[in-house]
């Protein structure tokens, strides 16, 4: 088992103060301390398991059992496991999660305003990409919505599932994450499409340090989401958010999807729908696709695969 137990709320707080905050202050965000305070609940509880079936299921059970005993789950709780035996991606695709990776689930109560929820799925991709670059994988990039690729192969995947708690009826976002770090062997069907950080760097990395970096960045960007919500409300709010959100701006900087010719589909592996060129993204994160006849359409849901050039 990895020493994931070293990844605790205390070590995360320490990492945020000693590493993340100074890094943010070097950037151009003057309110980084405030933003990190807004996101401080992320990782306020960290539950570490040697192995699990599926972290999302454990999160559901955790929320349910807390409520059934008359308590509620701490918002921002993180569930981590050294390995997962029943992990799966969207559309029940297999996800291989042996020891060496960072596998888990972040529990977020749905306290977000409607116009801002669309930015939530962008956050794990940004956080992971930044952490990878910090650890030396400078070529890491995001494929819409939040797949993280290195050398065209998937290093990390994320999914968000909604869950309504059984007793109090509270709505949660369960943010599942799977990051290939020190695991270097994949099943035959994934060998061409998956990659781990250790394969890229040529040496193993400290899983706990990487986990701290990833969670600190999750804390920053979820804080930024809430911080921007407050600023937007102070300006009068409304039904939609028409400006370019700083999260979307950062996503654009880290994504290599813009300008690419892609195959689009709701479930692109099973049912690819059409090829088009990515013309841009809308202010709410939707993909603007230009068809071969010059017309464009916007897709807010689905996935893409890059076409070979």
């Amino acid at each position: 088992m990895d020493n994931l137990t070293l990844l605790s709320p205390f070590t995360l707080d320490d990492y945020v103060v000693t590493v993340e905050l100074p890094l943010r202050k070097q950037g151009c965000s003057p309110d980084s301390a405030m933003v990190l305070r807004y996101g401080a609940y992320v990782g306020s509880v960290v539950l570490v398991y040697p192995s699990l079936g599926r972290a999302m299921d454990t999160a559901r059970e955790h929320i349910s059992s807390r409520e059934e005993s008359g308590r509620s789950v701490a918002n921002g709780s993180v569930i981590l496991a050294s390995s997962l035996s029943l992990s799966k991606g969207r559309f029940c695709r297999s996800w291989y999660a042996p020891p060496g990776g960072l596998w888990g689930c972040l529990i977020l109560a749905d306290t977000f305003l409607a116009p801002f929820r669309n930015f939530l799925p962008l956050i794990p991709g940004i956080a992971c990409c930044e952490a990878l670059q910090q650890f030396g994988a400078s070529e890491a990039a995001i494929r819409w919505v939040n797949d993280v690729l290195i050398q065209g192969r998937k290093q990390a995947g994320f999914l968000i599932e909604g869950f309504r708690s059984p007793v109090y009826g509270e709505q949660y976002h369960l943010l599942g994450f799977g990051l290939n770090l020190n695991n270097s062997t994949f099943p035959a069907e994934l060998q061409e499409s998956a990659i781990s950080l250790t394969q890229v760097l040529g040496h193993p990395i400290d899983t706990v340090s990487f986990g701290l970096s990833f969670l600190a960045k999750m804390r920053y960007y979820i804080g930024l989401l809430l911080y921007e919500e407050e600023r937007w409300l102070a300006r009068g709010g409304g039904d939609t958010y028409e400006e370019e959100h700083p999260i979307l701006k950062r996503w654009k900087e880290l994504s290599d999807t813009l300008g690419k010719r892609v195959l689009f589909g709701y479930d692109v592996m099973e049912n690819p729908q059409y090829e088009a060129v990515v013309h841009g993204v809308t202010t709410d994160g939707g993909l603007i696709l230009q068809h071969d006849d010059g017309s464009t359409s916007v897709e807010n849901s689905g996935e893409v695969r890059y076409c070979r050039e």
Partner: protein
Amino acid sequence: MSDEIDFDEILGKYHSDPYEYVDIFASHTGKVRFLVEEGSSIEAVSGEWKHIPGTALFEITRERNPKKVTALTNGVVSSLCSEHEGCFVEAGEKLMTIRHPLKKKEIIESILKEVLFIFHAPERAKYFFSLDVQSRIEKKSAREVSIKPGDEIIIMSLMKRDTPVYYSGEKGVIHSVYFTPGVSVDQGAPLIGVCPVDKLPLIKKIITRVKADWDKKE
């Protein structure tokens, strides 16, 4: 929902005026410039992926950012609020009405929407039935799948965020499905129409009567 329906009155209404009047509103604040006139023919959005825009109806400009708004439905501009031409309007201001000619299927759906409980899309997203409901539909048919308030019936998918949608409405069977899995649905658009089991004979009667009446007319 009443058991008694005055078929002659309903059908008479559609015979005398077989159109739907679709009001078009300003999507946000801005200065409006109309691109159609009263009486103009309007083409609907088309293409396999709904990627070919319909007729451009108006341009709305906010902060030097002009946005052309195009038609989603076909028809004729039956009224135009021309007093707004070149003026600044608030979001939600009515700008025109399109008279859309109804087909037989649309008339049936239109009548059914008045008698079924319609469950609407909470956000613009893609929708699909939850695994449980989908497997029940596959085993039988949607019209034999009973749902009640609180049931997880549909998954809303938006930006790789899948959220269960819980039914709130009358207990009944899923009579009409208005969405196609994998195709975006606008916020507020109908997702399903639910019918209490004891009202099913009435619904069948409506469909049979409208079909017979329309076929006779045609």
